């Protein structure tokens, strides 16, 4: 399974990359993707989008999905 992972704002700086490609078996959910890329438990405020739509951490991911992680939004 290949997942294209994107990070924004402070999470991008923390991870040190804007994009990462994860190729691994045993990834079922966005939470699994986060663990694979960060090695950490997700913090409660972190937001997730799958294919540019908001999703929960426990939403299933599929081969080729774009999964994005970012902090609370602060526009306007």
């Amino acid at each position, binding site marked *: 399974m290949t997942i294209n992972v*994107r990070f*924004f*704002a*402070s999470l991008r700086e923390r991870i040190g990359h804007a994009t990462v490609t994860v190729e691994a078996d045993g990834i079922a959910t966005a939470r699994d993707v986060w663990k694979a890329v960060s090695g950490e438990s997700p913090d409660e405020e972190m937001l997730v*989008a799958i294919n*540019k*739509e*908001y999703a929960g951490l426990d939403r299933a991911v599929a081969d080729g999905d774009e999964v*994005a992680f*970012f*902090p*609370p*939004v*602060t*526009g*306007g």
Partner: protein
Amino acid sequence: MTVEIREQPFDPWQMVSEYRSKHLVAGKSGASAVFVGTMRDFNEGDEVQAMVLEHYPGMTEQQLKDMRDQAVSKHDLEDALVVHRVGTVYPGDDIVLVATFSGHRKAALDACREMMEVLKSSAPFWKKETLGAGERWVEKNTPG
């Protein structure tokens, strides 16, 4: 029905005026409500010199379009315009414009306020401030 994310500065008042002339049918909208958000030179007690606005290309546009479509449908608006800056902005720069046009004032005013609240809470934008001593990410928006 326009949603625009732009790096260049803009004049929201001119934009509303031009939009009305170009896109609205004269005589249909009895009410126009306009919100303009402008960058301050202070935040949380500190002087802010500049700010970088980041967004999620593709997702941010779609979120704003969905927000606008829902507001137009819910409030039966004639039209709605949303403009948001990204990139580097400076104190006094206008950051966001939400303009709503409807037959009567309640729909325009309610929709304008609602769209701003939805934008603030769900549109993927992030702000990083430049202070006198370094930079910091804005972690949350003010409550209103």
